[in-house]
């Protein structure tokens, strides 16, 4: 009955009220429709772009850097796959367990990694963390085998610059690194981009445009986590060109080993062509360390080392040449015709100039000395006399002509020139005239004169060629990306009008230094006549009595030099060795030159024997 009471015909009031709500509903739907029209039709382009930007990413494929080859086509710088262990923090489910498992496979710092993962999970969980670099192949396969147990970890393959000879070629090849802001601004290569690897030093830098390739790219679709989902399209990278050098990896290694990690430089060159066979500056560094990204403390150690491992001593270090200039001074005396080689100078162990006594290295003196004996015995008194007779300008002219104190033009960046003083220089630095004492010591390569080992090598190579000065050459052939090979020709810089009999005389004297009971006996080779000259350049003026250089503190000890060529009759190789604070040239530097020459002739004999077969 109650039901019946509440029953009614359609209530107009309720129907009217329902219609009100119905209109509100219609209004809401109209509003939504308008909004959809606005978003989907009017603003469609805008949102479509945003959606594409959301989902598409360009991934750079780094172009492999080109090879650098030695004269026997062996790679001395190459690009290899390196396997790095990467962690994606968002995917790590059990940090403790995964790190414990990894510790059994790879060497890394678990605490550091744990901390890094924790930090990244908070800051940017989608970023990748490098946990360990340069995994060995076995390690890679074990990690891959345990993929299921290591959800957050993966192995990333990356092209890495690698130097198979390690420290040997450090200063010639240089190293690579990520392009800097400044380098990017200065480069006119439109392809160069942030994060690209460029040559920073040495040949890597000089030949960068040849070696660097063009990066490729991958258009990929990514999800919200930035993970690649699908490849849309791909442009393969173009690998860089190849640089053929004149260097010989075997000789280079022998030279480096002969240095025994003492500070200094060894350079070997073919005098007739200027081809550099070996170029060592010690101590070196491992360019592979730079390829993987040098750590701050490693850089600090290199930068603050007193022996300056980051300096190319052959190219940038300048040193008093000492007795190594004597053959050039003799050459000047002969060419200028002011000294008959047979003429005698008496050596009582010193030369008195005014009230000063200039000592000969041999305290009891050399007695009667002609030019041959003067060079062979390295008699200081003889060359004080030559210094006085020639004067700075005539010595300077010949030395500069031969290549000292000048930029040689070698194809390495950062070459510096030494100084060969003449009257003009003297006028520039002071108003005083040349004093006799200064003139005399120029004859033995002391005083203001200082040269780089490369310049000294150039000077002796000029003696070896009889007056022809060649530009030292490291790069002999370039094969750029497009495959068009380009030969770099040998380059004669100038021909000096030296009289052949004078050249022959000096060469004979240099052969005497090594073979005729001279100061360079340690460079003697069986079966091959080596000619060369020792040099022991004073760093500090020692007053009063003679002190043996070996008793002085390291940084005050003498620089040891030896420069030579072989065979004397028709020189094929010319080598300089300079040891900073190395003591005596004859005992310290000459054996290095001997070792380098020995390797050169050994390899030559092997090659000839093989040819005969």
């Amino acid at each position: 009955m109650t039901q019946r009471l509440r029953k009614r015909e359609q209530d107009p009031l309720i129907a009217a009220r329902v219609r009100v709500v119905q209109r509100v509903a219609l209004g809401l739907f109209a509003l939504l429709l308008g909004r959809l029209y606005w978003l989907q039709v009017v603003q469609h382009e805008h949102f479509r772009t945003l959606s594409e930007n959301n989902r598409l990413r360009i991934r750079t494929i780094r172009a492999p850097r080109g090879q650098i080859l030695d004269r026997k086509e062996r790679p001395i710088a190459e690009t290899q796959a390196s396997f790095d262990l990467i962690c994606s923090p968002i995917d790590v489910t059990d940090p403790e367990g995964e790190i414990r498992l990894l510790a059994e496979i790879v060497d890394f710092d678990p605490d550091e990694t744990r901390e890094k993962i924790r930090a990244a999970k908070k800051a940017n969980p989608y970023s990748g963390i490098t946990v360990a670099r340069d995994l060995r192949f076995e390690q890679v396969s074990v990690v891959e085998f345990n993929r299921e147990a290591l959800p957050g970890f993966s192995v990333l393959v990356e092209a890495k610059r690698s130097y198979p000879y390690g420290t040997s070629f450090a200063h010639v090849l240089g190293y690579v690194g990520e392009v800097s802001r400044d380098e990017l601004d200065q480069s006119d290569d439109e392809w160069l981009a942030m994060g690209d690897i460029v040559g920073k030093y040495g040949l890597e830098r000089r030949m960068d445009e040849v070696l660097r390739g063009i990066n490729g790219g991958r258009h990929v679709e990514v999800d919200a986590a930035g993970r690649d989902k699908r490849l849309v399209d791909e442009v393969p990278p173009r690998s860089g060109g190849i640089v053929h050098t004149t260097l010989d990896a075997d000789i280079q290694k022998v030279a480096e080993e002969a240095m025994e990690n003492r500070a200094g430089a060894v350079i070997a060159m073919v005098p007739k062509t200027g081809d550099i066979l070996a170029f060592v500056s010690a101590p070196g560094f491992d360019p592979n360390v730079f390829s993987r990204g040098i750590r701050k403390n490693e850089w600090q150690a290199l930068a603050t080392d007193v022996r300056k491992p980051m300096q190319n001593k052959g190219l940038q270090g300048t040193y008093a040449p000492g007795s190594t200039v004597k053959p050039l001074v003799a050459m000047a005396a002969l060419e200028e015709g002011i000294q008959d080689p047979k003429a005698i100078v008496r050596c009582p162990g010193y030369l008195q100039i005014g009230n000063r006594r200039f000592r000969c290295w041999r305290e009891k003196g050399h007695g009667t000395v002609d030019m041959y004996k003067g060079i062979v015995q390295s008699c200081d008194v003889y060359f004080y006399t030559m210094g006085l007779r020639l004067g700075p300008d005539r010595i300077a002219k010949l030395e500069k002509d031969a290549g000292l104190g000048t930029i040689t033009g070698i194809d390495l960046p950062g070459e510096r020139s030494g100084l060969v003083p003449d009257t003009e220089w003297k006028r520039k630095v002071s108003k005083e005239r040349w004093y006799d004492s200064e003139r005399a010591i120029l004859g033995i390569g002391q005083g203001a004169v200082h040269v780089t080992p490369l310049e000294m090598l150039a000077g002796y190579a000029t003696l070896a060629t009889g007056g022809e000065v060649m530009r030292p050459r490291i790069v002999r052939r370039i094969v750029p990306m497009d495959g068009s090979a380009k030969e770099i020709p040998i380059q004669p810089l100038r021909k000096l009008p030296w009289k052949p009999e004078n050249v022959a005389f000096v060469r004979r004297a240099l052969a005497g230094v090594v073979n005729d009971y001279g100061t360079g006996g340690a460079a003697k080779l069986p079966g091959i006549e080596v000619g060369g000259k020792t040099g022991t350049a004073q760093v500090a003026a020692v007053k009063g009595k003679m002190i043996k250089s070996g008793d002085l503190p390291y940084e005050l000890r003498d620089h040891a030099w030896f420069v030579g060529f072989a065979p004397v009759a028709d020189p094929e190789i010319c080598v300089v060795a300079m040891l900073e604070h190395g003591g005596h040239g004859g005992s310290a530097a000459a054996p290095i030159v001997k070792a380098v020459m020995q390797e050169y002739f050994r390899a030559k004999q092997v090659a000839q024997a093989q040819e005969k077969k």
Partner: protein
Amino acid sequence: MTRRGKFARLDWQILLAALVLCGIGLLNVYSGTRVAGTAGMPPFVKQLIWIFLGVLAFFACYLTSDGFIEEVVWPVFWGVLAILVVVLVAGKARGGSQRWISLGAFNFQPSEFAKVAVVLVLARYFAGRYNPSGIGFGDTVPAIGLVILPFLLVALQPDLGTAGVFMIILVGMIVIACLKGRTLLLMGVAGALAVPCLWFVMKGYQKQRVLTFLDPERDPLGAGYHVIQSKIAVGSGGFLGKGYLHGTQGSLRFLPEQHTDFAFAVFAEEWGFVGALVLLALFLFLVYRGFYLASRSQDRFASFACGGLTVYFLAHIAINLSMVCGLFPVVGIPLPFVSYGGSSMLTNMMALGIMANLARSRFTFQGSGERSINA
């Protein structure tokens, strides 16, 4: 005879509209989750089961005898209130609020059922207070009290979206239940004054959502991310859409909640303006049908209940779509029948079953023979 009669008098139109929406939702759930890689049963199968259970729930409600629903309104209401208290005390926290209770494999959100219970209890209350010259203010206050109880329980979870739906239901029902114009005005002013007070009871993340709604760019990777990505999905769909299964915003997971609250974004991206138009038309049809049933009912309780439940649907549709289009702050309101989710599917189907039941009942009393209302 009676059973066959019940089927004959069923409002097939409203059920069919709902089923078509369910079908669209199911396809959309597949598209939205096919790369999600969830272990166990894929959401597509789960949703299919929910639809099936939903249809059972529809008929369970529809087939109850005439008057039964009206009889059980009060016990059901108090029962739901009790469950809400249980949720608040022992519920499962998810996303910062306690909304869920676990029932074996399925998680349950009782606040969904609470909405239907509130509609029914208000309908029963207003039906008893009906006055041709309008219900006065004095009779309205207890009705507000009935809503405030579940409102507070849900707001404490906290789930301001659902709590807001209670308020919208209350407003809709006092309009339909013929309050006096004066009382309506008075309450309107009071409501407008109450809105600013809301700010002080909101939690930090809720305030954040409102602020980012006003300016999504203020936090594009945080609170504004939902809205920005959702608008990109909808807008990038364009006129014809990217094609089914070719949407990128959802499948690459730029869009969060892509198969639940933001299902429409996935749909609009793949089907474009044309698809969205069809979906809107279906919803509009559903709502109109609901209001039609409300106004044609000759029983006050049935009228108010149908009207209230339609307002409930309307609130969900409007809030969800506005949120996806960036017209409303992000709240946890699913799109009826389309969004993935069991509680919502069961509740909506039950609500629809109740509407069909109540709409049917009038013919029993009219005694004008067995005829379908759409005849």
